[in-house]
């Protein structure tokens, strides 16, 4: 029997994750682009790691970090009385980490695609770096940023490995669509699993289709 709770939760988790990912992706791509810090290449590889590591490994590492005995977990408990593990926040954290590289890479590519002369022109016209960023860099990177957002959203929606490691599978609390599919299949309820598969496929297809449509329209406009 299909419950709507996993669907709503999946969309909620993906939406919140995408907000974090947007901020973190743009910030790190901007910092990496405008500064020449030592160890930049290593940092760059580190940022891409969640894309190539198996999600379950990411989940394991996060568990070590934010689990009850983990350094971050202990700090959060002690100073803020917060426990992340096995909550919706953990699902958001897992989603954010696994989709971060997609946002980072898209933003980086978008920033690299900007004609640097335009930013220089803004500087010579008296604009501060902050103004250059908001009036030139961001508007011109927008198509790339939207791609990154959409890909991150779709990635988080389908997240399984890291989520089950740190958020668990608590029906009504942390059960997202992929977890619901897995456990319905495991209990031989193939109809329910199939329904969830259809729902997530329709959502993901609509998002990607919408993005391509928007991009196509944008390209013809310019």
């Amino acid at each position, binding site marked *: 029997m299909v419950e709507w709770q996993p669907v709503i939760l999946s969309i909620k988790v993906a939406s919140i994750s995408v907000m974090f990912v947007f901020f973190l992706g743009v910030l790190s791509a901007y910092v990496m682009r405008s500064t020449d810090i030592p160890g930049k290449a290593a940092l760059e590889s580190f940022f891409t790691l969640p894309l190539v590591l198996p999600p379950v490994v990411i989940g394991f590492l996060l568990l070590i970090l934010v689990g009850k005995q983990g350094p971050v977990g202990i700090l959060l408990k002690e100073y803020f009385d917060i426990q992340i593990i096995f909550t919706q926040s953990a699902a958001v954290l897992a989603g954010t980490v696994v989709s971060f590289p997609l946002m980072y890479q898209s933003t980086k590519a978008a920033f690299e695609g900007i004609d640097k*002369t335009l930013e220089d*022109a803004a*500087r*010579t*016209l*008296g*604009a501060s770096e902050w103004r250059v960023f908001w*009036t030139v860099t961001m508007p*011109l990177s927008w198509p790339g940023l939207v791609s990154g957002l959409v890909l991150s959203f779709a990635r988080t929606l389908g997240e399984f490995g890291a989520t089950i490691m740190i958020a668990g599978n608590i029906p009504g609390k942390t059960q997202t669509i992929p977890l619901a599919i897995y456990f319905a299949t495991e209990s031989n309820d193939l109809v329910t699993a199939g329904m969830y598969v259809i729902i997530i496929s329709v959502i993901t297809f609509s998002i990607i289709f919408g993005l391509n449509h928007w991009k196509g329209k944008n390209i013809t406009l310019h």
Partner: protein
Amino acid sequence: MLTVDIKKNLSDFTLNISFAAPNKTIVLFGPSGCGKTTILRCIAGLLKPDEGSITSNGTVFYSSQTATHLPPRVRNVSYMFQDFALFPHMNVKHNIWYGVKTLNHQANQLYEKLITLLKIEHLPHRTISQLSGGEKQRVAMARALMAEPQILLLDEPLSALDAQSRYELQDELKRLQEIWNIPFILVTHSPEEAQAIGSEVLFLHRGQQVSEPPPSWNMNGNGKTTRSSFQYFY
């Protein structure tokens, strides 16, 4: 008055140049890759020289001695880039107003004056992609002057234009310089352009100022020798 006395190591040679620019059009003439654009970028603050100083009307833009390097935004130097660098996501009006510090009646007057002088009254709401090469040049000029600069740098401002627009705009550049009465530093490798616009010409070769013009100086567009003499400019 702008004074430039800088050194900068480039990949093939060392740029070493010293000149003073009064309120006239100074042309930096030389072949591609001789360091002309690097000089403009150093004056604008987009590049840092290795040594020397750049001052304008008493303000030190750059000095290796006092470790001063003002960022471009406070230099009040407008730069007209070779491909104009107009913001493609803004319309003509927003481009022109980008460098205005305070929105007041005076700025409005200047805007009206500029669009009339440059004959672009009919363009304000157009997007950049709808402009011809000549129109882009005029809009870029309006944007540069709208920021009320104390120096205007022009990097091959006419090279992207057809012959007809080039002739028209050469005259306009001269006229605008007379009206604004600030140093215009113009970079070009076209002898015609240099002779038509420049009050003074500096010949550059591999980052150094040279007294003799290169052979290309006396060639016209067809590669034939012309009778014009660079002496006229000194």
